[in-house]
């Protein structure tokens, strides 16, 4: 037996020690390797047949073998002989419920917003906020909304006696940011929005949005938009989630697109969450319409930029499998504590 074979045998012997579950089995291991008719004596005998150069190395390996196996046997023996743990000795009931106050939980709407802040924060977006009560200028006109667009209808928007309104989107914050800063701009605007929808399983007159805006002298193209939303999809819904884009219309972007995420539940095969389409509509987005830059005094020729927006409740619903948006505003503790 040369040195390599001996080392192999040693590994095998140590493994056998570990595997022995009873003192009897362990004794069997000892006999196999160290016993009078075991492997070690055979090994020693075999040394004589080796070439002189190999013999010294093999001899050292054999000694190491003996030492290691002896030690492993002793250790294993101690473990096997130790008394088995008994649950609860006299007066010591370790099965009693632990005592420390329990943590609370974060509302799913906040969870989604906080995650989005992190995800977009990692690629350079900071958060901007604005008022819930907005001017019609910031909410519509500055965003290039045509004066007869249906969204201006009192049927759809909460107008106040003051002539202001409850913002229908968080895009007005983007206008406020562009009014107050020079490019480059890279912000996300999470916040509460309002539309005169009758409440049902998927609509709520009060909801949350996360919008984003990136305006720059280089970058800010449709290709960059695709990249950022793909990054978001992977981080928020899972690395295997894909994104696809469909052309659409929004007043303040051109081209405008809608963005679908492949269903994180079924992987695209179709299920209840994605209504058996394999895709879930998540975001509206597009390249900022140059007419919007004109409103805020930016030089449209020098710049390009994209914007996107998505519903927080919708993401929370598909991510956590919540079937009725009203659950999010019901605040039943038995629902909330599951988000601990």
């Amino acid at each position, binding site marked *: 037996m040369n040195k390599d074979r001996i080392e192999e045998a040693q590994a095998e012997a140590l493994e056998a020690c570990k595997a022995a579950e009873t003192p009897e089995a362990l004794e069997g291991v000892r006999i196999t390797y160290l016993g009078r008719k075991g492997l070690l004596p055979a090994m020693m005998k075999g040394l004589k047949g080796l070439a002189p150069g190999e013999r010294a190395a093999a001899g050292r390996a054999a000694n190491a073998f003996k030492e290691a196996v002896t030690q492993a046997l002793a250790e294993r023996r101690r473990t096997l002989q130790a008394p088995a743990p008994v649950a609860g000795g006299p007066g010591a009931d370790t099965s009693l419920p632990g005592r420390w106050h329990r943590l609370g939980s974060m509302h799913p709407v906040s969870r989604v917003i906080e995650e989005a802040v992190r995800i977009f924060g990692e690629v350079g977006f900071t958060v901007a906020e604005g008022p819930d009560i907005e001017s019609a200028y910031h909410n519509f006109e500055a965003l290039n909304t045509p004066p007869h667009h249906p969204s201006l209808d009192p049927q759809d928007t909460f107008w106040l006696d003051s002539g202001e309104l409850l913002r229908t989107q968080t895009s007005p914050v983007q206008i406020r940011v562009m009014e107050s800063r020079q490019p480059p701009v890279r912000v996300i605007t999470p916040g509460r929005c309002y539309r005169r929808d009758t409440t049902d399983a998927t609509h709520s007159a009060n909801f949350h949005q996360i919008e984003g805006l990136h305006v720059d002298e280089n970058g800010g193209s449709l290709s960059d938009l695709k990249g950022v939303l793909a990054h978001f999809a992977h981080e928020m819904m899972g690395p295997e989630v894909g994104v696809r884009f469909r052309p*659409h219309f929004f007043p303040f972007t051109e081209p405008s697109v809608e963005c679908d995420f492949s269903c994180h539940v079924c992987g695209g095969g179709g299920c209840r969450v994605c209504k058996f389409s394999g895709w879930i509509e998540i975001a509206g987005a597009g390249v900022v319409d140059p007419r919007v830059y004109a409103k805020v005094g930016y030089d449209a020729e020098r710049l390009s930029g994209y914007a996107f927006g998505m519903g927080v409740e919708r993401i929370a619903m598909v991510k956590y499998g919540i079937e009725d948006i009203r659950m999010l505003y019901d605040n039943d503790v038995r629902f909330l504590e599951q988000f601990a």
Partner: protein
Amino acid sequence: MKVPVSWLRDYVACDAAPETLAERLTFSGTEVEAVTPVEAAFEGVVVGEIRTVAPHPEADRLRICHVYDGRTERPVVCGAPNAAAGVKAPLATAGTRLADGTRVGSAAIRGQVSNGMLCAEDELGISDDHTGIMVLPEDTVPGTPFAELMGGPDSILDIEVTWNRPDCLSIIGIAREVAALFGAELRLPPVDFEEQGEPVEALARVSVDAAAACPRYTARVISDVTLGPGPLWMQRRLMLAGQRPINNVVDITNYVMLETGQPLHAFDYALLEDGRIVVRHARQGEALHTLDGVARPITPEMLMIADARRPVALAGIMGGAGSEIRPDTRRVLLESACFDPGTIRGTVSTLGLSTESAYRYERGVDPAGAEWCSRRAAHLLARHAGGTVAPGVADVYPGQSPPRRIRCRYERVNRVLGVAVPGERVASILETLQIPVVARDASGCTVEAPSFRRDIEIEADLIEEVARLHGLDKIPAALPQARRAPGVSNEAVYAHQACRRSLIGLGLHEIVNYSFVGAEAPSQFDAERRAEWIVLPNPVSADYALLRAMLAPQMVDTLGRNLARQVGTAALFEMGRVFRRKPGTANGETARLCVGLLGPAGRGALDRRRPVEAEEMFLWLKGCIESLGRAQHVPDLSMRPGRTAWLDASWTVEVRSGSHRIGVLGVLAESIRRERRMAEPAAVAELDLDPFVAHAFAAPELRPIPAYPGVARDMALIVDEAVAHETIDGIIRQAAPPELTRVSLFDIFRAEGIGRGRKSLAYTLYYRSAERTLTDEDANGYMARVKEALRKALNVEIRETQ
């Protein structure tokens, strides 16, 4: 917009499967929401002619018709009131499967043989009409397979047209998209007809008095029309597109509207005073009965079509009953016009009346196309209503404008899309969309925006066309480059997140409530500041009448709702905005924090059965807010007795940071909790959020770790109930030397032996010096000073325990 595929194929040479059409349209921006197959194959149904009708000997309501099917006559039992000799109707032969799935048999009905069945429209799945058998045109040939008249199986594309593309509210508009997508030829339908008789100028005079609201008005006159049902194939198409056939003239106007997107209106010429058409705004006191039979209140900003005397139609929305097409109409004035979208929209929203026509005008109709569409309708009227078209057209066109020329720079296309699209490809995409390229060079091309594409105004609009036709999937997703914009920070957001996490760490669940509350929801909480509440002029429901001015009312409701669902213990918080109108200022928004406790939230698991008391509810909440204050580094957080309408007067404190009042905290007033069926005390705090986030990341002022050991001394004080802990604490701190580091209350005890109205408070006092180890003598001396001061100030009995 419902588009029957067979109809679409009339205008575009593309035989792609309906699903393929749907996919390509959707991914180029014309979203097909559904593809619905139309099964009606009408197998076994032929045209039958009723030759004779005889009464059924056994049943009053039934009759025996002898029906000629093109080869022989057969008896058919029929109950329809309109079955009469000479009538041609669909005959379902034995074995035909009807729309409801039943099969037509050949059987005796009440003892009489019936070989087949004469069908009503609903039985064939054409419509839901069951008033009688479906009467076919007189010239229909008996024995003709019904499918030949009606068209075979079909598919309907259900298309959601975006607001900017009114041109796609038409079959031809969709065909244009399909032609561009598939490189197929666009085929426009015929518009030819013979002109006869008096010229139109002799019959009709059109004037437009409101040019801004009516860029174009055209009128043709068609004489000698014969009213009757429209051709079957047209009826069938209208029905597939979701419209109800009415008569040939009205059907043709509707058909051409669906075909071209141009709304048309047919007036009975004889009912127009003086053959006059005046497009003008309404006058004070005028009234109009629209053809749905409703008297419409008319206001001066509404646009009218009037004759010489009175309004005869709500322009672009609905005709008037006084000039509508009747069975005896012989001469028709055909309107094909363009109206201003805003004017139409205003009238639609004032009257709450929308129509297919108004829907298109609100979004914009192509003025340049109006005359062509009029010709198309005249062509059909001549063919299918027997009309003769008067020579010429009355055409008033104040809104005519030259086509817009727009430059499309290839470099800008590449910049916006982030991918290189070759210049030739850009130009060819635009051309396939019928956007003519009038000039081109190496750096770009110049196009003329077609009149039917009102949405194309600037270069960005052309880039959008290129993107959607080139294919968004061909634009690569660039890896995001993390680059911060200068001078901005996320610190404020992270401070909010830290506050939220501190609250969660304290064991509280976060809740989120609506910004809306019911009209009287805050009246028990905030009635004296009612003037500041912001009332919504158009709430969605009475429960959402106000913007919330504070968070506590919803918190209390949330606790009550949970209790009603047998959730007896709850510790909740909400961070949210509240809204108040301060006199003389704009609508104010403030971020607030509300915390609510219900049940034994502060007790260990083994001690939750005992009812909770007001004092412990109060102390839990107080401790919770103090902990939060420490976690968020609120400067000088303090509490002192306070008062507010919705909290129990005995257990209310005002919370301060330094000298700023930042909110209130206490046990909920009994009347409020009883109303919500809460049997035990609950505690609620309503606070400004800013102090809890403003210093979130403040660096601590570090103190050295003590070098010398300290000494602790206990003492119990028996005092009157009225003596507050705060008072004792104050006396101790004042009397003790600077070596006093901490005063800790460790027991409160009340018993007979102590005396009525007395309580025992046990304190540990900790002393430590920064310079040396304190001795027993030192501590004894300090305690003596403290006790003396206590005795002097209070009626106190002191027991030192060591």
